[in-house]
């Protein structure tokens, strides 16, 4: 419903349907559960109109129109499926398949990485027709630890470029050259680490072919257990981004941003996306520890540990005064714990020496 609430009508596959000013044919069709194929479409981004798979027949138009970029107007008569349109879609998919090394990829590569494979199955487009040169070229020298730039699988949909600019605001990547030789690149065709990339991973997660892939998740590609997803909240800052934890057996293998996460709508930062190794790291403390008379740390119970800490604070306060106490809260703690921490320092010890590492 638009802000002024006025509804218009058009005919969609023979049925009269309502729409609001500004809606595209694709949005209306999706609302009516029409399964229009797309590859360059990401609902979070400005429609681009590159893949042309979403073309629909529009009465009075000489050619089919791209439904993603065509705004609805009252009285339009639209057909989302027809024999010619389905044939164009299949031909286009056969053409896309012909430009890539492979279509079937490990789902660990990224959230959207199965899109091309699924569409080629649906349209039975792996026919081997239109054989010829491959378009993209693997960026073999980019040894950053997070993002695999496997452009052999790139189909030039520009979703990575657009999500980087429109969602993340980094403008770190762009498409260089023209035509079949177009390549996704950074400034001066260099490495991601030398660009303005923040390694948020959104380009990885919107890539419909796995050409941009999660290097850390792919470490688990050979594990035999089935891939499972568990909805959770990112444990870092207080924004509360929703994530799907990817696991195989008992092992956490990767993170997907939740596209329906109310705080993040598919976005994450480098920490939420890639910095999960601490969870199952061998150095991680899983029990409280206190230093013994031998100078070494020993496992103990919480009561003993807390008593030791309280005793240490009390002695320091007595000996050096209230400004000898300084509290710093972890950036991973939620707001409630941060609040408790500052109360503890301010009210408990009467000092304002309280900070949080997120501020740095």
């Amino acid at each position, binding site marked *: 419903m638009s802000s002024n609430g006025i509804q218009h009508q058009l005919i969609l596959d023979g049925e009269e349907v309502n729409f609001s000013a500004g809606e595209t044919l694709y949005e209306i069709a999706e609302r009516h559960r029409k399964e229009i194929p797309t590859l360059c479409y990401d609902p979070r981004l400005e429609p681009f*109109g590159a893949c042309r798979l979403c073309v629909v027949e529009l009465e009075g138009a000489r*050619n089919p129109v791209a439904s993603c970029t065509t705004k609805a107007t009252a009285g339009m008569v639209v057909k989302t499926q027809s024999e010619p349109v389905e044939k164009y879609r299949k031909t286009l998919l056969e053409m896309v398949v*012909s430009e890539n090394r492979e279509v079937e990829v490990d789902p660990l590569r990224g959230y959207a990485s199965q899109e091309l494979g699924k569409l080629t199955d649906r349209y039975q487009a792996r026919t081997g027709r239109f054989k010829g040169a491959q378009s993209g070229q693997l960026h073999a020298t980019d040894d950053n630890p997070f993002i695999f730039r496997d452009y052999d699988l790139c189909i030039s949909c520009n979703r990575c470029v657009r999500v980087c600019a429109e969602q993340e605001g980094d403008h770190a990547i762009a*498409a260089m050259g023209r035509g*079949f030789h177009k390549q996704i690149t950074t*400034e001066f*065709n260099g490495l991601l680490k030398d660009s303005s990339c923040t390694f948020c991973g959104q380009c990885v997660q919107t890539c419909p072919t796995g050409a941009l892939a999660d290097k850390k998740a792919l470490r688990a590609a050979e594990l035999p257990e089935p891939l499972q997803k568990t909805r959770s909240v990112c444990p870092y800052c207080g924004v509360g981004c929703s994530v799907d934890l990817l696991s195989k057996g008992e092992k956490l293998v990767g993170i997907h941003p939740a596209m329906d996460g109310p705080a993040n709508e598919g976005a994450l930062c480098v920490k939420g996306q890639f910095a999960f190794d601490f969870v199952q790291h061998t150095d991680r403390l899983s029990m409280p520890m206190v230093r013994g008379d031998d100078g070494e740390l020993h496992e103990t119970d919480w009561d003993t540990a807390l008593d030791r800490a309280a005793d240490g604070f009390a002695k320091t306060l007595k000996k050096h005064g209230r400004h000898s106490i300084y509290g710093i809260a972890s950036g991973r703690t939620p707001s409630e714990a941060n609040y408790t921490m500052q109360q503890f320092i301010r009210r408990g010890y009467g000092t304002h020496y309280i900070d949080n590492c997120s501020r740095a």
Partner: protein
Amino acid sequence: MNSPTDEDLVANWRDEPAPLLPLLHAFHDRDGYLSEESIAVVSAGLKIPIAELFATITFYHHFAREAPGQSAPRVCTGPICALHGADALLASLDGATPMPCAGRCDGPIPVIKGQQVLIGTNAEELAPTASPLPVANPDGYEECVFADIRAEGRSTLAGYRQSGGYTALQQALTQSPPELIALITDSQLAGRGGAGFPTGQKWQAVANASGEPKSVVCNADEGEPGCFKDRAVLEHDPHAVLEGMLLAAFATGSTRGFIYLRYEYPETCALLETAIAEARTANLIGDNILGSDFSCELYIRRGAGAYICGEEGSLLNSLEGKHPYPRNRPPFPVTHGFEDLPTAVNNVETLVSVPQIVRRGAEWYRSLGLDGRVGTKVISLSGDVQRPGNYEVPFGLPLKTLLYQWAGGPAAGRQIQAVTMAGLSGGFLAGEDLDAPLDEPSIRERGSMLGAGGIMVFDDSRNIVDVARQAMAFFAEESCGKCFPCRIGTQRLEERLSGGGPTDLATWQTEITDIGSAMKATSACGLGMAAPFITDSLLKYFPEQVAQHVQS
């Protein structure tokens, strides 16, 4: 004189309209190439993210990114120059690189070095050579575009005025913009860049649209192979283009106009700059033109080598400093053009017709066509004919008359095998279809188009499959890479015309027609829609040559 500093260059252009291209050219001209440091300075100066700026620079043919860059020769290897030994010339020049058709098909071969175009078919011959003046047609048909182009001194302000120049502007300024639009509408003048949209209707839409400032853009990015008409007009009659733009601006309520000129015409750029300076001094450009309330500034913006920038959406993106992909339509430029404001984008030929129509009347213009057709079209004719050149034909003139009577036909002992239409975009016409009258509906009926009016002639000594291959290689090279059908389709068609793909004829043909159908129906702009005309017409007229190609 010291060469300007980075800061000077940025300061010169930062606050000008459409600053990116001229600023990049300023660095390119100063250093001969665009260094990473220069790109970083431009990025900071114009606040364009550096990755995007870098990628946009790579889109253009002529921005070099290392020495010797601009001073290294670039040799035209377009379809006509290829017939005249372009490959050998390319091989004979040190450090030379090829470039697509540079618009000298009426006198090949152009080589660009720095700011100069040299002409010659071998290294010894190369010398600066003026564009040939179009010859009057032998049948004495009245002209519009070329009506006064042969007048003495026409390219100077004084000469232009002596042959009636700027009287149309004076006349229009005594009337109202709606009266001018009504006159142009009544004349039935239509877009001569190829699209054929009624000019009066376009101007009316811009005049009606809300948002200011409005703009007029003269599309002088003549990149279609085999087209060189705009160059002839711009060089020999520059003030007619300016007067046409001023009339368009007056009609539409625009206060600024841009000439988007292709890179390959550096001397034309200098001529236009002189013409604009002359006109400004004479109060024909600027504030309160000729004492009226009408004010308008005109600017030249030089392209950097990209065929797709002749497509109006790409052109506008290029002007704005964006990546030059075509725009999704609607909205159209008449409401959302330059900087998303109302803009009239008109071809050079369309604009120069306007002053003549204002002076001589709508009825006069309508009467120029044959058999009830309206107006004229400039045809750039080149290839295997005895007198190549620009000919202004009345719509409806038989193609054969142009080829044989006007241009002298092929060399003695040769037959015309085929012609390409709309430069390359209309594919081939051959056989009986060479009898077609020259007007858009008649050519369309035969599965081709007239388009911008380039016609290249290939006689029976030419390998027609190889001509098709070169044509498709051009489209593949110039595809912007945005939409899938064109990006992949032009590549696959080129491969199949180069000996790749299936070796079974039926399978080969099915692949060609399936790719072509998808391209025609689903491409995002005219390039991808038109490229399959080449393969369609090749299959239609030359099935035996195709069979031989596939099976050998």
